[in-house]
C-alpha cells in the first residue's frame, strides 16, 4: 500500500510547522508538526504512544506498522503531515478481545515485532476475503520476526480466524 504524496502547499503552515487534523485511535486530533517529521516519531515521542516500535527505520521490518485508513503502513516511512484528514490506528486502540489469540499461543517471545504483527493481523481479520486469494504467510510477509520462526504467529492468526479464543494454553 502506498501513501499518496500530499502536497504540503494546501495545508496551513505556521512558521516552521504544519497544522493538521486526523482521526487518531478514534479521537479527533490536532497536530502541529515539522514537515520532515515521521509519523513514527510523532506517535512515539510527540504523543507518547510507544506501543509502535522502531525496528529498522527503513520500511523493512514492519515493527512500526499502523493502520492508515484501515490499511497497514510502515509509520517510519510516512511523514506525519501526510495523515491530514485521515484515520490512523495504533496498537493502543485495539480491542483486547481481538488480542486473546496472541496471548494464548506462541506468537510472542521478545515482543519487539508483536505490535506490528498484531496491527497487520487486525487488518487481515477485518478483510477475510483476502484469504480467498492469499495465504496468511503472504499477507504477513511484511512483518519480520526474529524469535518464533513464524509458526506461532501463523497459528495464532488461524485461531483468531476460527474465533477460538481459548487457544492452546492455560
Amino acid at each position: 500500500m502506498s501513501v499518496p504524496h500530499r502536497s504540503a502547499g494546501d495545508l496551513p503552515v505556521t512558521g516552521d510547522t504544519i497544522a493538521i487534523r486526523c482521526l487518531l485511535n478514534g479521537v479527533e486530533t490536532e497536530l502541529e508538526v515539522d514537515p520532515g517529521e515521521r509519523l513514527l516519531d510523532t506517535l512515539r515521542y510527540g504523543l507518547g504512544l510507544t506501543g509502535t516500535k522502531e525496528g529498522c527505520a527503513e520500511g523493512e521490518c514492519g515493527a512500526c506498522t499502523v493502520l492508515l485508513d484501515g490499511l497497514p503502513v510502515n509509520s517510519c516511512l510516512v511523514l506525519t503531515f501526510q495523515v491530514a484528514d485521515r484515520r490512523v490506528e495504533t496498537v493502543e486502540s485495539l480491542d483486547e478481545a481481538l488480542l486473546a489469540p496472541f496471548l494464548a499461543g506462541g506468537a510472542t517471545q521478545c515482543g519487539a515485532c508483536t505490535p506490528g504483527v498484531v496491527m497487520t493481523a487486525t487488518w487481515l481479520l477485518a478483510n477475510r476475503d483476502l484469504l480467498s486469494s492469499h495465504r496468511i504467510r503472504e499477507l504477513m510477509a511484511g512483518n519480520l520476526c526474529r524469535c518464533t520462526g513464524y509458526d506461532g504467529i501463523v497459528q495464532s492468526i488461524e485461531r483468531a480466524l476460527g474465533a477460538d479464543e481459548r487457544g492452546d494454553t492455560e
Partner: protein
Amino acid sequence: MHPEELLRKQAETAPDPGAAEALAPHDLSRLGRRSRRVDGHRKSTGSEIYTDDIVLPGMLHGKILRSPHPHARIVAIDTSDAEAIPGVQSVITGRDMPLAYGIIPWTRDEHALAFDKVRFVGDAVAAVAAVDEDTANEALTRIRVEYEILPPLFEPEEALEASGNPIHEAKKEGRNGNITKHVHLEFGDVDEAMAGSDVTVEGEYYFHGTTHTPIEPHCAVARRNVNGLLEVWSSTQVPHYLQRELARVLDLDVAEVRVVQPAVGGAFGGKSEPFDLEFAVALLAMRTGRPVKILYTREELFYSHRGRHPMDMSYRVGATADGRIRAVDGKLLLDGGAYASFGLVTAYYSGQLLMAPYDVETYRFDATRVYTNKPPCGPKRGHGSVQPRFGFEVSLDKLAEKLGIDPIELRRRNFMGLGRTVNEFRVQSNGFMECLDKVEHASDWKNRYGRLPRGHGLGVAGSCYISGTNYPIYPNDMPQASAQVQIERSGRVTVLHGASEIGQGSDSTMAYIACEELGVPVEYVRVVSADTDLTPVDLGAYSSRETLMVGNAVMMACRELGTKVRASVATATGVGAEQVRLANGWALAGGERMPIARAFMLAEAEHGTLGAVGHYNTPKEGVHGDYRGGTIGASPAYSFTAHVAEVEVDEHTGFVNVRKIWVAHDCGRALNPMLVEGQMEGSAYMGFAEAVMEHQRVKRGTPEGGLHDAPSLLDYRIPTSLDCPEFIPLIVEANDPEGPYGAKEAGEGPLHPSLPAIANAIFDAVGVRIDRLPFTPDRVWRALQAARADAAPESESG
C-alpha cells in the same frame, strides 16, 4: 479491606479445587503445562517498556561518529566546530575514556571510543549529545578526524602471516599480535587410532559468518543523579557485567552504578557484552548533567555485530568397519574481526563442545582465532559450536555413506550414553537416542530416506549443548545465580531475580516455579528482574544458563518459604506439615482448605515478615578434566538434539527449498512446553536462515574495502514468513539431577543440527556435497554443474 473480606473474595475467584485431595500430585502442578507468558499481555498490547520507550525530563540525544576506514591511526580529532553548534551539549572522544575494556578479563583490547587506532569500518571514534537527533547528526559532520591510513587485513590467512602493522600489538615480544588465541588439545593418541581405523573420511568446511539482527536495535539511556548515582538503562543481556565494566572504564565505584535492563526485544548473543553506546551515554550524562539516550540505527547493528565467526575447518574422521568412531582430528581457523569480544572462549568452544553425544575414542583439535579489520565477531546462539558441528555432522554423513550404514543407525552405534566425553565432560542425563527415534519416526525416515524422487531429500544431524557455563567470566567463588522472594498477607508473591528476560521467557519460568512451590495463581506473582539496585546478582542471559541456574535459585528461596507456610497451616489445622499442599490458590490440609492468603497470614503471624533468598552454584567436583582449558565448555547439564530436514532442490536454478524440519530436543523436564517449543522452533529457524539465506560480509578492495555488503534486513536477507519451512517440535525429557525439576536448556541447542541436516538432505536429494555455507542458489547450481562435468567422462565411456 478487612482480612475476612479479602479471603472471601479470593475464595470466590480461586479455581475450585474440587476433589483436589483425590488428584494425583502432578494434577496440582503448574509445571509441564502450556502456560501463557507473564509478559504476553503487555507485549501484545504495546504496553511493555523497552529501553527506547524511556523518555526522561531534559533528555538529550546522542550519536556516535564511526570510522570510514578499516584500519587507520588517529592522528588528531578536532571537535571545536561541532561543539560550537547551538544545541550541542557535549562531544567526547577516546581520550575521555582511555581505559581498555573487554568482556573477557584476559583480553581487554577495546576502547569505548577508539583511542589511538580504528580497526574496522564502523569503529566508534567520538560521540555527541545534543538537544535533538538532527542536531546530533549535524554535529557528527563537523568533527574533523585526521587519519593515517594503514593497510587493512581482511583475510584470516593474511592476518596469520606476521608482518608490520599488526591489528593489535602483541602482548609478548615475538608473538603475532593478530592472533587472539591458539588452542591445541589432544585426548588419546589420535594418530595411532587414525592409522588403525578401517576407514577415514576427510573434508574442508567453511562457515561464512552471520549476525543476530534482533528486531529491537541496541539502545541505552543514562542519568547521573545529584547524589552521584549513575543509572543506565540498556537493552543488554548482561546487566551485571555491564555494571562492572561501566564502573571500571568511568573510574566509578561499582556500588555507585545502577544498571537496569528493561524488556529486551531480542538479543541472541548480540547484546551480551558492553557496547560503545553504553559507555557513551554514561559519560555524556555525567558531562552534561542531563539524561542522554542513544539508539543504534539498523545499519549500526550490522557494524557492531559480535555475530558468528566465519570458520575454515578441516576434519578427518577415522572409524571401524562397523562405524564406530575411533579418531577425530579437527583444524580450525576463526576469523574474529577487529576485537577479542568472547573470542578466547570461542576458540575453546570450537573444539570443546563437539564430542557429545558420541562415544569417540580419540580427539584432537587445533583452533586459532585471528583478528581481521572487519566488524568484531562474538557469541551468537550456539556460541562457537554451530560451525564445527556443521563440519563434523556432514563428516558423519560421509562416513555412513562410505560404510553403507544408515546415517541414523551410524549415530546410534556411536551413542555415548551417560558418563564422560572423550574430553572429560560429565554427562548425567542424555536423551539423544530418543531424539533420534522421534525424528526417525515423525519423518517416516525408514520409508523415505534415499527413496524420494530426485530433487527431494532427507538429512539427519545431531548435537549437544551446555546448560550454562560451569564457571563465570571472572573467577570467583560466589553464587552464579541468586533470587529473593517475598510473600505477604494478601497472597502476593514477589520474585526478585537477576536473570535477563530477552524473549526466551525467563520471567515466566521463574513465575511458574513460584506458583509451583507456593501454590499461588500466576496473577499473584510479580517478577522483578535484572535491575542491579533491586535484584540479587545474576550473570546474565548467555550460554543458556537461566532456567537451570536461576530456576534453582528461585526454587530454593520458594521452598524455604513454602516450608514455613505449610508448618503454620499444619499448626492451625492440626494435621502434619507433610500433608499440607499449596496449589492453585489454596492451602489443602487433610480435608480442609483455605485460600492461600489465609495460609500466608498464618505464616506471617507466626514467623514475622516473610522473605527468603536462594542461590545456585555449579558443582566443581568431577565435572570436567583437570587439564588446562578443561573447565571451558564444562556445564552442570547438557542438552541433546536431533533434526531431520526435508529439502527440495531445483536443479535448474540451484534453489534449495527447505520444506520441513523435525526438531527433537532433550531439554530435561519441560517446565512449560509452549516456551520450550518456541525456543526449538526459533532455534531451528535461525539455523535454517544461516544455512540458506544470511551472510555477514564486508566488501574488499579500495576504496570500499571494509564496508558492509548489505547492512539492512532485506539485503542481508533475514527470512520472512514466506521463506520459512514448517518446524515440527518434538520434546524429549531426560531429566538431569542438576536441573530444577530436572530441567535443562532449550534456547541454543536446537539450532545446531539445522545446518548439517540441510546439507545432508541436499546430498540425499541430488547427490552433491556442498561443504561451504551458505547454500545459495549460485553455489548449489555451480556444484551441480561441477558434478555433471565430473560425471560426463564416465557416461561417455559407459
